[in-house]
Each structure stands twice: as C-alpha cells, then as structure tokens.
C-alpha cells in the first residue's frame, strides 16, 4: 500500500506481540454498527506517474496569462533560492518548534523574521505570523477591543479591501463588536480626516488605516493616526509589505505612530497560487505585547550561556490558557514565513525598494497610456502606489472577456464591491511587467473598446 512499509511478516510478528489475531481485532472497542462499508467516492489509487500526468493535464487547462490583477494578491519575481530552500525536508516536514533544542533552525529563522517585520513596519515587536492578511486584521480588531476596555466599536474605512471587511465582520461579530464603515472621498479616493467628526462623537476602540488603500491610493496617514489618538483610540495600519520599503512605516505615522500594523505577507516571495497558502503579519508597540495573539519567539540562553531561541509568552496561548487565551489560534504560517524571510534576505533594503519603485512606476506608466484612450480615465486623484482604478466607456465584463482571449487578465471589475463607481477596472502592473507588456495591454484595450 502507498506509504505503508509493512511486509506480511511484519504484520504477523506485530500482531502476535500485541496478542491479536487480526488487525480488525484492534478495532474491537468500536461498536460494530459504527463501522463503514467501502468508500464509494474515492477512486482507485494512482501511481506517481499517473497522478503526474493527471495534474499536468489539469495545470495545462488553467494555462498562463499576463496578469494585471492585484486587489490584495500581487505578482512579483520570486528568486529560485526561496522555494528550493523553504522546501528542504528539514523546514517542510518539521512541526511547531515545541522542542526548542531540536528546532533551532525554525526558531532562529522566526526571530529573524520578527526582526525584519518589526523594522519594515517601524514597530517594536512582531509575532511569528497569522493565517492571512484578512484574518490578521480581524485579530488586530479584537486586540484593540481587549486593550481599550470600554468601547467595542471599530471604525473601518470603505477603502479597506472589501473582503477583509467581510472577514473582520464575520469574526468580530461573534463578540458583539460593532464595525462602523467610513465613507471615502469620491474625488481623491481617500478617507478624509475632516469627514470623520460625526463618527468620532461616540467612543471607539480603533481606527483602521489602509496604506495603500484598496484603490491603490495613498491615504493621509499622519492626520488619520493623530485623529484616532486624539480620540483615545488605537490606530491599526493595514499595509503592503513591499510598499513599506518605500513608504513611511506605520510606526512613524503622525506624532506618535500607529499602534498595530497588519497586512498580507504574500508579496514577499509567496506565489499567487489561487489564493493560498499566504501569511498575515502582525506587529505592534511594546505596550501591547501581552495582547498580541499568535506565536512569538524570544532569544535566551542555554545552560552553557550560549544564545538560543524558544517560543515565549506562551501564557497568552490556547494550549495553556484554554478558554482565557488571547485567541484560539494555534499555528502560524511557518513555511510561508520561511520563504518570506529568505526572500527579504535575498532582496535586502535596496532590492525591496527597487521592486516597490518599479511597481509604482509601471502602474503610473500604464495608467498614463490608458488615459490616452477615449473614455478611459483615472477614477481618483489621490497619489498612487502600484494599483489604480480606471473608468471605462463600456461594460467592464465585455472588456475583460475580450482581453482574456488575448491571454491578458486585465484587472478586477469593481462592480461587485463598488457599484457606485460605474464601469471601472482596478489594474496593477508590478515590476514583472515590461514596457512591451504595458504597450501591448494598451493596444489590446484600445481594440477591445473600438
């Protein structure tokens, strides 16, 4: 049988040592009426050669496209070394580092990751990661409510990723936390601090600040952060890690800096892969260290005073605190963080900044060219990072269909989440796109519109 090494002789010897006649006898404590018959929907087993053929056929069906969709998952070049090392068996097939002395590789790597993320976000500390960006934001909201103590309201701009808002709502509504959505400015595409006064009359635990926001627009983060702090609330930054190589980190927003920074870690060396596995990152100010959920690694010493690493502050976690834990979370996204740490080491501060700057420049170049087409224009006037909303003179779905036939995924239709904008497309051109790709996109769109 696949992956079962027992010979017939092994089975006989083992059963006799146990004192049983058959394997079936080992299940004699299970009531007979509970035992199932033959599985009907499980097909017969395949050899590795056969499954390879099947999976290659299915992969062929999916094909490869020129992708201009961003919307929370971004295509960047991933150096070959990243996954070659991350899939070494010692990383790939190890478990949570509960036995510290047998897990120093994973533990040290996570400590290095925490250092990189804290610095990238401008925060004091980072945990060892969460499931994804959306669930990290939900955990940040819960964390803010725990630390605020009196208010259970969270202010969240409509410029935050619409699915993140849904996920946060699904998770925090279990604890009777009120999620209040804030409007955006139709001209700039930003959440304007001056429009917030009516929402700030009542107490709130935190204001969420996306940078860049879902439209690719940069928010006025300094004013927003200061406004939240003036109202005695926390500021939670939702940020793109690649952008942080170029943009002011949350820890430096406003006069005191944001309190918690979260985001989707996927751009740091994780393939798009139909949406996962990715990882969420979470960093915060030192004051909040006992409120942060998830695993945290600390540096310590062994009996010979040699430096080493352990899981620490476990008293916050479910396996110790059970019903009083900060969260029910039990894992981090270990393997994804392994890849991200190797990715950040290979890129370094300048490499990461160049990727950010090129993605920014490519998107601006694309938008500039698109605006030369009749009826196509930028929706918002606010400054952009590496994504932009553009309006079209015809139904968006028609354009997407035509472009797809040319092997181009032209962007995300904004209709579902922002019907008020009309026929509009969210487009993104990262450093992976050449000027030829951008010209080709423009050319194809021109034809699609004619």
């Amino acid at each position, binding site marked *: 049988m696949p992956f079962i090494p027992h010979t017939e002789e092994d089975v006989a010897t083992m059963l006799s040592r146990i004192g049983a006649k058959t394997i079936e006898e080992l299940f004699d404590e299970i009531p007979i009426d509970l035992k199932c018959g033959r599985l009907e929907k499980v097909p017969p087993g395949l050899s590795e050669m056969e499954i390879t053929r099947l999976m290659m056929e299915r992969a062929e069906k999916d094909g490869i496209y020129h992708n201009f969709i961003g919307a929370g998952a971004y295509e960047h070049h991933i150096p070959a070394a990243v996954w070659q090392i991350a899939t070494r068996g010692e990383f790939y097939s190890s478990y949570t580092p509960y036995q510290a002395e047998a897990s120093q590789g994973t533990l040290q790597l996570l400590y290095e990751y925490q250092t990189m993320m804290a610095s990238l976000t401008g925060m004091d500390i980072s945990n060892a990661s969460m*499931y994804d960006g959306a669930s990290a934001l939900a955990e940040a909201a819960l964390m803010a409510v725990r630390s605020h103590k009196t208010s259970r309201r969270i202010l969240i701009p409509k410029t935050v990723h619409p699915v993140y808002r849904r996920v946060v709502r699904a998770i925090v509504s279990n604890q009777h936390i009120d999620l209040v959505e804030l409007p955006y400015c139709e001209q700039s595409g930003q959440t304007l601090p001056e429009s917030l006064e009516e929402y700030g009359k009542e107490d709130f635990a935190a204001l969420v600040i996306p940078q860049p926001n879902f439209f690719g627009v940069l928010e006025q983060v300094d004013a927003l952060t200061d406004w939240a702090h003036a109202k005695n609330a926390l500021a939670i930054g939702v940020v793109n890690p690649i952008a942080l190589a170029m943009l002011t980190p949350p820890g430096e927003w406003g006069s005191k800096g944001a309190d918690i920074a979260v985001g989707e870690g996927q751009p740091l060396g994780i393939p798009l892969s139909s949406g996962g596995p990715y990882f969420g990152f979470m960093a915060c100010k030192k004051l909040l260290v006992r409120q942060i959920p998830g695993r945290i690694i600390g540096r310590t010493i062994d009996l010979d005073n040699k430096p080493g690493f352990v899981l620490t502050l476990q008293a916050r976690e479910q396996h110790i605190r059970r019903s009083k834990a900060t969260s029910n979370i039990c894992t981090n996204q270990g393997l994804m963080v392994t890849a991200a740490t190797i990715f950040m080491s290979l890129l370094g501060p300048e490499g990461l900044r160049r990727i950010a700057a090129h993605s920014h*420049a490519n998107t601006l170049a694309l938008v500039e060219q698109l605006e030369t087409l009749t009826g196509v224009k930028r929706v918002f006037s606010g400054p952009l990072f590496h994504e932009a909303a553009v309006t079209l003179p015809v139904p968006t779905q028609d354009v997407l269909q035509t472009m797809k036939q040319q092997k181009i995924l032209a962007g995300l239709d904004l209709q579902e989440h922002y019907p008020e904008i009309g026929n509009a497309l969210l487009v993104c051109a990262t450093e992976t796109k050449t000027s030829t790709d951008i010209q080709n996109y423009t050319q194809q769109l021109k034809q699609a519109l004619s």
Partner: protein
Amino acid sequence: MLIFEHSRPGRRNYSQSPATSAKTKNIPQNLLRKTPPLLPEVSEMDTVRHYTRLSQLNFSIDTEFYPLGSCTMKYNPRACNSLAMLPQFLARHPLAPEDTGQGYLACMYDLQEILKDVTGMAGVSLTPMAGAQGELIGVMMIRAYHESRGDKERTEIIVPDAAHGTNPATAVMCGFKVVEIATDKEGNVDMAALKAAVGPQTAGLMLTNPSTLGVFEKNVSEMSRIVHQAGGLLYYDGANLNALLGKVKPGDMGFDVIHINLHKTFSTPHGGGGPGSAPVGVAERLLPFMPVPIVGYEKGKYRWITEKEKPQSIGRLSAHMGNAGVLLRAYIYVRLLGTDGMHRVAEFATLNANYLMAALREAGFELAYPTRRASHEFIVTLKAIKEKTGVTAMNLAKRLLDKGYHAPTTYFPTLVPECLLIEPAETESKETLDAFVSAMKEILAEIEAQPDMVKGAPHLMPLRKLDDVKAARELDLVWKPQPK
C-alpha cells in the same frame, strides 16, 4: 550567528531586482520612508548557506522519527509538493476568472466529494486555513443554526476536560460560555456529568474521538442521543481522524459538524508550524450556513458558489479560498492512496500504535489506560518514575532528542500526570519502532543508574536546555544592532 550579523553595507544581489532605480512620482514627502528598513545586505550565497545551515538544526519527519501525539507526523510524499507547484497552479491569481481555473477547480471539487464520502457528511467547505479556524467556523455554524430557528437561549458549549485547548478557546471566541465535563477512569467522558450538563442552554458539544487520551469514546452514540435530545448539536474535532480513516465515518457517529486537519490525516506538510488546512463538513441541516466559497459543478463547468447563493452562510474567513496550495497537496495524496490505501490508513496507524504500546509495556513503562486498546496513539505516564527518581516526562523527552528521536507530546492531555502522548503514524516501519523501543529502554536504565544525567538532558544537541523563564522575563523579540 544571525543573518544580520553577516550583513555589510552596500552588498546586493544584482540579479534579483531591477537594474535601475525608478523614481517615485506625485507622492507627498511625508508619505515616503526616511530611513531604510533593517534588512540584511548579504550575497545570494550567504543567504543560501545561512538558511541551509539553519535547516540542519531542525528535527523533521524527513530526518527523524517524530512520534508526536495528536499531531500525526506521517510521511509527506514529495509528489504532493512538486505537483502542487506546477507553474500554472502557482501563477494563477485568486481573482482570475473561473474559466481560467477549470483544472484547479476540478481538483477542489473532487476533493470536496472525496471528503464528504470519507467523513459521511452532506456538505464540505474547504476554506478554513487551520484546525483552530475550522473549529471557529464550525461553532459559528452551530450558533447560526440555533439563531435561524429563533432559539436564542443556547449560550453554552460543553467540552470534555481532555479536549485540545483550542476547543474552549474557540467557544469563547465565538461568544459562548464553556462548560467542562470530567473523564472517567477508563478514559471515557463521564456520562453522568454529561447528563447533568445538558439542557435548554446547550448549544453543542465539542468532542474528539478517539479522544486525546488515545482511546475510542465507546458511548459516542449515547452521547449523541443525549445532546440531540436536549436540542444541542455535536461537533467533531477531527484532530484524531487518522485513527478512523476508512473505518468509521464521523457522520455515522451522529456528528452534525466536523473539521478535518489535512496537515495531519491527509499528509500535507507541517512546515515548522503551518500552513494548516481544515475543511469543515456538515450534516444536512447545516448546509445553508457553510462558509463560502464552495466549488460547484454544472453543465461540464466548475464554478464558485458564493454568498449570493448562500445568503445564510456564516460568510468568509479568508480573503480567497483558504490555503489553496495545501488543498492541492491533500488532493494529490488521496489520489495516490486511492480507495484501498484510504481503508488501510487507520488499520496500520492502529497496528503501529498497539505494537509500540505492547513493546513499551514489556520494557517496563506504565500505561495510563492499560485495559484499553490504543487508537492511533496512547499515553505513557512517568508518575511513579518521577516519585522515585525525580526524573520528569520532560527530562525523558529531552534525552530522547539526544538519541535521535523527536520527543512525544509531553504534559498533554493535562489530566494524566507526567504523560507522554505517543503517536507513531502508519508510515513508520517495524524496525523504526523497535529502535525507538530500544532507545526508551536505554533511557529507563539511565534513569536508574544516573538520574542526574537524564535530568540535565539534552547533552548532544546543538544547544543544551534553554532558559524559558529568562526568555519570558527579559523579552528579546527582535535583534538590535550593537552600538559601535
């Protein structure tokens, strides 16, 4: 040495980023970063060498026997990884149209159908990203079900005291009060305690079966009757499904909602602590509440089923559809196993556990439940050894590392003192189990002859015992450059 300590200002990998530095346009000065982040400036070779060396400090399934109870550390077939990493699968954007993902969606649809069959549930959603998230979603569905019936007084979730910590933490996270019930001497849930605990306030019961004590909960059908009669629902924590795979379906035991840890039973990698993946399965009456998206199949096309068609869905708990790449690995695994292979999993996991249990008993170890069959795992207690010699379960665990074995789970479940929860998994050979028994025997002799040596273990690992107390008291969570 940390990667940061290899760093030299100005060192770069020229082939890994654009050759020129593009200019930023129209971004206000206050939004631009003033000082670069503290990322290492190291060569590609330095990076490769550093992380390869770090990997070599880990124990892993690929290098050592890893009998970690309740974690199902079975072999992770390499084909699952390489085929899930075919370029088309990796390149596919999660928001790409359905017709550019028919191959991927076909795998997901097939996986849903296979998991329905294996668990005996009416519907499966693949979205949860880890066991604890599967639990959260499951309990949210229980809540949504009661609320949809206007049954608003059900505020309690019952959890046995042997349960994983995630069970009570999840119930609380979902706004429920947790009622813990005791375990009897044989390791079963105390039925009198259960009867006393249920009532009109009961929303549900969360149960792991076989329990974390490594024994089958014999009264499960009776428990199901009691909870259902009180109007509650039954939640199956699939942490130990490996013990029953192909033998017993949770649906047939009366469970209304379950989660399956693919990173245990379906052999997806543990990756040093994640990513996990934990699809949820539901009985008929919970179908409307399943999390979205789910994959549907009609007229020869695969498509997403979203909240539009499932208005009562508890919603989304991830930005896309959970850990898609992990789901692909699980799918490849089940196709490699096939029907016959699937029926063998529980059999050989149980054979290995009972064999190891018998051999360790012969070697002089005390079993926590000596009158019971082992499921896929069992518990050894060092209570008597500790009383006599002062050597603890943790000491023995650390000494095992010296002998090249990962330690079993220690101090869980908490109700057995000085316990080792041992799970060998079906993929280990008899020789490996025999060698492990020999190592355990050696340690037993060492405990007799030189207990202090055992207490000081590990001795042969890259580091000796680490100071956890210092780590928690003098927090050092990020590296800071030494001032020059």
